[in-house]
């Protein structure tokens, strides 16, 4: 059993997002990058599955700033191997544009299962898992929390609004867009990370030439208008608390 997990870095929302010149993208020069939170869940699920079934896990990523370190982190968390796809051009490529590059690499690896995060905060032109599902002509399910593996198929739990869920059996090979792993992502110790940095389990390959065309383009990126926003009470807890209670009193909202 071989699982490929696709990992992407996204801007860290703890940082300010400044716009690049032209106002059509954010300035990545100064913003911190973090592993997409849903990709982190996908990686954890892959490692959990490998611990349960002995599957090998290959982490796959497009080369870019910080990506090599990110893949070393994936090795430290339990991935068996990592592959960096180099020379794809712009960093980052939208999931839509990049989907054929991943698809080509995946075809060559011929895994049983492909996992990636259900979405990223940047997926304006669509999410990766369903793009890959069609390009590979493999079944695909998104918004999944929890996978079990069996011979020839996997069982996934898909979540819907209102707290409804369904168990779906999917023939392998398949592509799954993961939302939440069966257990919270594990902590990685500094010593494991150091070990992974020295390992030879990270390899490089040229990215394929395929790209998906896109007849949509960004015209502008702006912060939302603040006019409709909250009345702010400042940051002193006592006076904020007094302000809140005053407002609740005035509206008759305090439980009696």
């Amino acid at each position: 059993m071989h699982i490929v997990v696709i990992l992407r870095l996204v801007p860290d929302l703890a940082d300010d997002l400044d716009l690049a010149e032209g106002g059509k993208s954010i300035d990545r020069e100064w913003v911190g990058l973090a592993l997409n939170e849903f990709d982190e869940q996908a990686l954890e699920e892959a490692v959990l599955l490998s611990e349960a079934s002995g599957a090998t896990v290959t982490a796959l990523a497009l080369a870019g700033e910080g990506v090599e370190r990110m893949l070393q982190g994936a090795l430290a968390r339990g991935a068996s191997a990592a592959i960096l796809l180099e020379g794809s051009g712009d960093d980052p490529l939208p999931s839509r544009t990049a989907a054929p590059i991943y698809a080509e690499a995946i075809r060559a690896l011929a895994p049983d299962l492909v996992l990636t995060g259900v979405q990223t905060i940047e997926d304006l032109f669509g999410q990766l898992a369903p793009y890959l599902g069609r390009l590979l002509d493999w079944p695909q399910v998104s918004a999944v929390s929890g996978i079990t593996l069996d011979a020839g198929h996997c069982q996934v739990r898909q979540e819907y609004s209102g707290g409804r869920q369904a168990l779906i059996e999917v023939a392998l090979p398949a592509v799954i867009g993961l939302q939440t792993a069966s257990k919270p992502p594990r902590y990685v110790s500094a010593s494991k990370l150091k070990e992974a940095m020295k390992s030879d389990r990270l390899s490089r390959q040229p990215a394929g030439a395929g790209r998906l065309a896109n007849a949509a383009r960004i015209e502008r990126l702006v912060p939302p208008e603040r006019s409709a926003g909250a009345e702010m009470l400042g940051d002193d807890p006592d006076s904020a608390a007094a302000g809140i209670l005053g407002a609740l009193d005035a509206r008759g909202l305090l439980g009696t």
Partner: protein
Amino acid sequence: MTAVLVHIELEGEAIAPVSFQLLGLARTLAGDHGRVDALLVAEAAEGQLPQLGAADRVFCLGGAVAAGYLPETHFKALQAAREASQPELTLVAYSSAGLDLAAATAVSDDLPLVAYCQGVERDGEELLVTSQLYAGRLLATSRVTLPAVLSVVPGTFEEAAGQIQGNPEMIDLSAAVDTSHARMRLVEVMAPEGDDVDITTAPSLLCVGRGIGDQDSIAEAEELAELLGAEVVGSRPVIDAGWLPKSRQVGKSGQRVAPKLYVSLGVSGAPEHLEGMSKAGFIVAINKDPSAPIFETAHLGSTCDLFDLMDSLAEQLRQRGQ
């Protein structure tokens, strides 16, 4: 616009509110001369047709093959409906089903797709589409050529405009959709987990987000909630961490709530959370990040530390109680 096709979703047995929102949007975009088509995949499809009066035609896949939601079946049905309808625009919800279907449709038919959509405007032969990016921190305007696919954020457009009783023409897709050689099978549908409370009917809710830090601090929030006469609910990360039961999750994959009072502590206000609570009567948000999107939806806010605020609030409420 000549034709707009809407993918209809069910919640349990009922047509999902977002589907009426999409039908309303489709009607507006189609104008007086355009056609609105809908795709309904449901076991008892025919019985639901009169609710879809906002559509001119409804493509139906009914019977046992349509029971529950299977991504593969819905994709095939959407392909068949698109083939028959030839829509300029295909609308799906930003929901679990929409996540499955939007990109799959776009890549199969070589169409552009814009996701997280919250506004659509016609501009000549093109569309200008507004989307929330970076978890609501920035708004993107995209220019899209038609035909295209849009995935629309639930709760954005009016439901009333699409909630029209009527008698749409029904077109049966059974012959056009081949469900043999299926690569997926529905094993089990699980109803929402029951719990002590129904958070959708509680008048006051106190919501804790990832900012609460750990399970131990939940007890503190529970004490404060009791003083406020509120039930404790959580954002998705708090539920995923196991600090509160799933039945208390607010948002896209949890419950939609509209209490009179919603107090949030350490919640950033991602679109998937707002979807579940933006209709609350009075929203108070505490978040130490002044640029957190929750402050756009809240009525009253403070950037103080949530733990300090919990202490102050609890103390002042106790003093009043004496």
